[in-house]
């Protein structure tokens, strides 16, 4: 019981009213017989904030447990926001440096990380920074573009490998164009 009380005291010393309260993990709550009495035993002065804190701790299960000091960092960043943006941009960069093999994979990883971040933002949007959500959206757009371009090239590559043409059909475009141009007698 002493560790949880210490956490709660730190939270109330450092945090303002706007900052999200520290989260007691659910595994700790299950051991208690009467958690409300413990909270009231810590702070008898303001029972209203204690009730708000208990109400919020039941809702917050995903985010806040990772950061122990909410006063230093007012708004948290979304999980994997930077990773989504970086992977989305790397998808097109890797397409331009080592062929259309790694780009679609990176784009798919980025797109797979997007729904978790969006869900976390939708559940409690006050806790996360808005710029972080912008990062997620930008990364999503970049990943979609990279996936479409890289997938198209990969399809061309696979078709060409299966049909086994030694030399792409596209390389004959110029000759065909010249033939058509000469046929017009211009």
């Amino acid at each position: 019981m002493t560790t949880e009380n210490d956490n709660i005291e730190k939270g109330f010393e450092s945090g303002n009213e706007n900052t999200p309260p520290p989260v007691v993990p659910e595994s700790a709550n299950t051991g208690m017989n009467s958690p409300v009495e413990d909270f009231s035993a810590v702070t008898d002065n303001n029972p209203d904030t204690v009730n708000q804190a208990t109400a919020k701790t039941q809702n917050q299960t995903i985010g806040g447990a990772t950061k122990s000091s909410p006063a230093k960092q007012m708004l948290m960043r979304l999980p994997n926001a930077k990773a989504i943006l970086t992977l989305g941009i790397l998808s097109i960069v890797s397409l331009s440096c080592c062929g259309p093999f790694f780009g679609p994979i990176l784009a798919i990883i980025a797109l797979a990380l997007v729904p978790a971040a969006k869900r976390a933002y939708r559940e409690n949007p006050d806790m996360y920074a808005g710029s972080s959500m912008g990062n997620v959206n930008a990364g999503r757009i970049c990943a979609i573009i990279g996936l479409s371009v890289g997938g198209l090239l990969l399809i061309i590559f696979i078709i060409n490998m299966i049909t086994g043409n030694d030399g792409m059909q596209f390389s004959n475009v110029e000759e065909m164009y010249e033939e058509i141009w000469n046929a017009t007698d211009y």
Partner: protein
Amino acid sequence: MLEMLRHNLIPCPFKAVTGCDCPGCGMQRSIVELLDGNFLQSLHYYPALLPLILLFVILVFHLRFQFRYGTLILKILFIFNTGLISLNFILKLLNIHWL
């Protein structure tokens, strides 16, 4: 050092199979020329290299310092880069040498 790089470039599997340049072919030559200081030759080999470097620099600074319009700039620059790479790819397929 540059001569050693110039003679030990990584071959392209796309080009080995299909026989034509992939959208990234020319980038290593372009990097070598850029390290050598020939900007025009670098642009001739791969026009999208300098915008890609700019995109990376802006990405790193944006992730570190969270600019206000950073995501908008990144999106616009990304679409510009994609367009440039695709245009370069199509023009190389058609054997049109621009720049």
